[in-house]
């Protein structure tokens, strides 16, 4: 949810509560003042009746007495009796409805006699008439406020958050491998400027770390390969000289270990290279041609293991992939499929417009199949491989957005490369 939507929503909830409370206060105040006004009128009426009593004339049929009940009291104990007000819902015959009835009782003394004067009047409660009006007023206020807030929040956030959105876009486009520093426009908001400063610092550090790592992996390649080459050359020269069998054996072991070290170093620097490799936009590899060609290269290896190879190649399959990386990928896939095969086993290769599928017979893998894409993971510990081939295959596939999956079922290993949809 966008930032200004969240603000608007929070404001709407707040407004709703404030307006609800406001509504309750207005309702209560209105209801109270209507009752008070009625009581005021009745007080006046009771005053009028009291002065009528004091005048001594008979007002029994007077229109002022319609809602007034005058009861003479036996004893003038006025000290005890004060006026009372009672509000109660009751049936009103004149209105033919139940209404809130206010009764005011006073105890005037006229001509030495005490009287109880009770007047009554119906109160029109707000709940009856005003409620709908009130609700409408508040609802409309709410709607107008909300509309105003929505429009204003769009306008204001567009203005205030403009530098922030620009910064966001800047970060989204940032790549540690890009040569230039990130550029963020200055803003009038102190916090955004602080954020930008921080981001510029962080991205600069990310870039320098990235460059450092890249340089390191490149240098490591050079710095390790040369001494290895030197040792290897010396060993080869030494092996070619006159040696006893025991010496030759020792040197051979050393040579094999060195060979292994060199292979690992090469594979790791190759992976480092692939980590930093930026695929070109227009690279296309013609797999319909490359797959059979690779199969032919490995044919002798397959033949020595007595493998039966079946190829099903769709014509004209061209996928985004650098040609030499495609070759590297296929080499690793084929050599794996042959190496991990059983003597006299099978190898099936299917290439369609959407995927490349390699199936080979073989022993069940000893590790979970998903882990085999990691470095130095081997499905079969007996084989003298370094277990980095699939990591390379995975990295190459990822570079171009192809998805690779591996599963094992019923004695068959299946490696599937699902091609990324071509961008036309």
């Amino acid at each position, binding site marked *: 949810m966008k930032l200004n939507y969240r603000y608007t929503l929070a404001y709407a909830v707040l407004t709703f509560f404030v307006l609800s409370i406001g509504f309750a206060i207005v309702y209560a105040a209105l209801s109270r003042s209507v009752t008070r006004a009625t009581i005021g009128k009745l007080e006046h009426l009771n005053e009028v009746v009291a002065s009528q009593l004091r005048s001594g004339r008979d007002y029994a049929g007077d229109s002022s007495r319609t809602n007034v009940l005058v009861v003479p009291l036996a004893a003038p104990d006025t000290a005890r009796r004060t006026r009372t007000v009672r509000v109660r819902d009751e049936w009103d015959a004149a209105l033919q409805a139940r209404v809130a009835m206010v009764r005011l009782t006073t105890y005037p003394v006229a001509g030495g006699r005490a009287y109880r004067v009770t007047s009554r009047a119906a109160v029109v409660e707000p709940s009856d008439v005003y409620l709908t009006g009130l609700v409408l007023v508040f609802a409309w206020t709410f709607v107008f406020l909300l509309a105003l807030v929505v429009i204003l929040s769009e306008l204001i956030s567009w203005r205030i958050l403009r530098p922030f959105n620009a910064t966001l876009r800047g970060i989204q486009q940032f790549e540690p491998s890009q040569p230039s520093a990130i550029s963020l426009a200055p803003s009038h908001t102190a916090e955004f400027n602080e954020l930008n400063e921080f981001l510029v610092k962080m991205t600069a550090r990310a870039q320098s770390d990235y460059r450092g790592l890249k340089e390191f992996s490149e240098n490591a*390649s*050079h*710095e*390790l*390969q*040369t*001494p*290895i*080459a*030197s*040792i*290897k*050359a*010396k060993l*080869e*020269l030494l*092996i*070619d000289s006159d040696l006893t069998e025991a010496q*030759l*054996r020792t040197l*051979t072991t050393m*040579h*094999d270990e*060195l*060979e*292994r070290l*060199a*292979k690992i170093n*090469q*594979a790791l*620097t*190759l992976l480092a*290279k*692939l980590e930093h*490799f930026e695929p070109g936009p227009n690279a296309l590899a013609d797999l319909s041609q490359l797959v059979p060609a690779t199969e032919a*290269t490995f044919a*002798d*290896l397959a033949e*020595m293991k007595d493998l039966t190879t079946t190829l099903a190649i769709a014509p004209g399959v061209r996928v985004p992939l*650098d040609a*030499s*990386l495609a*070759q*590297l990928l296929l*080499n*690793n896939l084929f*050599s794996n499929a042959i*190496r991990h095969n059983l003597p006299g086993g099978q190898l099936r290769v299917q290439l369609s417009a959407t995927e490349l599928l390699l199936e080979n017979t073989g022993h069940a893998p000893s590790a979970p199949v998903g882990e085999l894409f990691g470095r130095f993971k081997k499905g079969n510990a007996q*084989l*003298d*491989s*370094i*277990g*980095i*081939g699939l990591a390379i295959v995975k990295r190459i596939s990822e570079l171009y957005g192809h998805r690779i999956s591996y599963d094992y079922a019923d004695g068959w290993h299946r490696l599937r490369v699902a091609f990324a949809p071509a961008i036309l």
Partner: protein
Amino acid sequence: MKILLVEDHAELARSIAGYLGQEHYICEVAGTFDEAREKLALFSYDVVLLDIMLPDGNGINLLKLLRKEGVESSVIIISAQNALDFKLTGLSEGADDYITKPFPLPELHARIKAIMRRRSTHKNNVLTFQDITADLESMECRVKGKLLNLTRKETNLLLYFINNKGRMLTRQAIAAHLWGDYTDNLDSVDFVYQHVKNLRKKITDAGGKDYISTVYGFGYKLSAPNQ
């Protein structure tokens, strides 16, 4: 045949120069960019073996300089760069070949021979070892005049043996020569055994002597019986 080796790692340079000396090349060593440039200006070489990372410059720049000045030497780049660098970036542009460190010395020797053969004007394209001949043009191999029916890999293997006759060839060196260095296929050395076995059988079947000897656990050697 004169070779200039441009390599800043002194011990590696000494080993390579020593090996090439045994193969009857005249090999001079330059440890820096400037030294190499000076030697190239003063003398002419058939082949320049060029390391890319030099303490005072880049070997690629030296290569460009050579080509600009019209120096005719063949150039083989010897580099610790990954093979992929060459393929992806065209790093070896202008060079005749490249080889990545670490490499078996016989492989370097085979590459030099291949380049020299391509350059040579007189078409002596037949390699001979004892009673084995190999025509590099038609890729036909014969034993005592009798044509051998070899696969491409076996032909390749035989040529590698003849080019490095009398030398111990490791299984790994043979594997790298036959299959390239792109796979982490260390057990391809088992396949080397098969190929060598087949090749020996085909030669002896054709009436040739078994010149290939096995050095147990290590590799093979092509040598005349009296050696």
